[in-house]
């Protein structure tokens, strides 16, 4: 049993099972839509968790990559009649290249300095998206044309539920592969002791850039998916608040936990929906619940519950 849980593939399989099970349990297309939004956020959060939870490097600008991915599938098909899939690929490529270029100077910084630098980077991208209205529609956003695959128009809550759920499972699978590989060990090592990692032969600067690029690509793919599901993009996808939201999902779900990334995304997407019945108290309640979660489960939902469960069994 223990061996089963600690197997590399346990987490992506659990997520796959969750996606399948929920598809039966959810009563209407409204719920399927909310679930699809959870899968999309979870994908971005897994990428950010690789950077934050495993490698120990913070980014307060990740919505910038998310926004670029979203606008790639809005702008490129509209301007150059590129297929949305190719547009998403181009978005991911551009995000990877940008992350590579800014990663080297930025990731030399540590702690609060890194936080402020990534914050600035995110704001820069959000501003660019807002200001270039001839291309992006400015603050009003722009529509995203429907994707056609082999002559079939991709539409409907259920279709997107399965597509985004599939993407999430693949994203989780790649993440657990990475974590269990020599690269993953190098990232976790430099998190705990940079000097010991360097002495062990790890090119710390290069590995930080690598994981930054990977996490940027996750965010971009998630952004592209959201744009396609919504059929519309707004500059809010790229803004500072969204960056903070992604970081919050990582921390609430659990740093260094792939399953936690899904839990964190689920809580922060679903709770606001549930709390709308409380009208003006909605945001207060959300804030209060986040505080309580962090006080009670201080290493995040999944790691804290896992520790509790293990102590019980002993």
């Amino acid at each position, binding site marked *: 049993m223990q061996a089963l849980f600690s197997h590399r593939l346990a987490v992506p399989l659990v997520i796959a099972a969750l996606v399948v099970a929920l598809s039966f349990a959810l009563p209407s297309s409204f719920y399927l839509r909310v679930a699809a939004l959870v899968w999309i956020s979870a994908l971005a959060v897994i990428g950010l968790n690789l950077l934050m939870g495993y490698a120990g490097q913070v980014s307060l600008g990740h919505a910038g990559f998310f926004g670029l991915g979203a606008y790639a599938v809005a702008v490129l098909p509209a301007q150059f009649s590129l297929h949305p899939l190719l547009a998403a690929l181009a978005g991911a490529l551009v995000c990877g290249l940008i992350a590579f270029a800014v990663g080297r100077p930025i990731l030399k910084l540590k702690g609060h300095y890194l936080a402020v630098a990534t914050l600035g980077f995110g704001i820069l991208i959000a501003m660019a998206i807002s200001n270039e209205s001839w291309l992006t529609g400015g603050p009003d956003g722009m529509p995203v044309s429907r994707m056609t695959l082999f002559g079939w128009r991709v539409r409907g809550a259920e279709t997107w539920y399965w597509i985004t759920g599939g993407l999430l499972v693949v994203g989780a699978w790649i993440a657990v592969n*990475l974590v269990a*590989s*020599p690269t993953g060990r190098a990232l976790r090592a430099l998190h705990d*002791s940079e*000097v*010991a*990692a360097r*002495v*062990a*032969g790890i090119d710390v600067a290069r590995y930080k850039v690598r994981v930054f690029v990977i996490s940027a690509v996750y965010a971009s793919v998630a952004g592209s998916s959201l744009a396609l599901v919504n059929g519309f993009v707004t500059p809010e996808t790229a803004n500072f608040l969204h960056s903070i939201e992604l970081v919050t999902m990582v921390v609430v779900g659990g740093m260094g936990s792939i399953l936690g990334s899904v839990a964190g995304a689920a809580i922060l997407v679903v709770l606001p929906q549930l709390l709308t019945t409380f009208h003006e108290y909605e945001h207060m309640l959300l804030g209060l619940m986040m505080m309580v979660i962090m006080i009670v489960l201080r290493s995040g939902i999944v790691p804290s519950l896992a520790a509790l469960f293990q102590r019980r069994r002993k």
Partner: protein
Amino acid sequence: MSILSVQDIGIAFGGVRAVDNVSFSAETGQVFSIIGPNGAGKTTLFNLVSGVYQPKSGQVRLDGEAVTALEPNRLAERGLSRTFQNLQVFFRMTARENVMVGRHLKESRGLLAHLLALPSTLRQNRESAEIADTLLSRVGLADYADTLASSMPYGALKRLEIARALAAEPKVLLLDEPAAGCNPVETEEIEKLIRTIADDGVAVVLVEHDMKLVMRSSDRVLVLDQGRVLAEGKGAEIRSNPKVIEAYLGTHGTREANLALN
């Protein structure tokens, strides 16, 4: 030619010359010890040799090549490894994973293969884990393989660092107070371990306060005081050197050193 040779190396912190024109060389298969009072500059010397600090003056040659001020990871590629006086352990990883990190340079590092968990990567993981387990047994930590480093006792962590350093198959190994905080049994195990490491063809450079351990395992001893070389020679010469007795050994240390050698 010596595998490691250090020439007139020095560094100052805010005007204080922590290491001042120090030269020494270490030989393959031998244990070269550096002793001296606290604050003498022993750890700083290790930081200079391993590339953690940039020297203000002097040169380091490793295996005939000039390697002064190279990054620690570049030095690791050339066969230099070390442990730390103040533990630098990967606390969120298990003992086995800590040692596996030491295999980094010997592992295949293709990112795509890692992301897709290609068979080559899985094979690599298994191989590194096996080597790590062998090394953990060698330093007496086989029982801790699956334990998180954060829940291991201090003495075990000291040996974990040695296992991690050995995983890189170094030509030169710098050990900074490996027996500090260890009980007599553990210290004796570390002494045996150091001897076998040297016998396997590694040049061991040892910083240690335990005079018994130093005198019994060293081929040569260098004494540092206030950043400078006070004396260098065989253990027997060092323990009877009046300058060394005055600056460091005192009467107690001399008695220990004598007991160890007799």
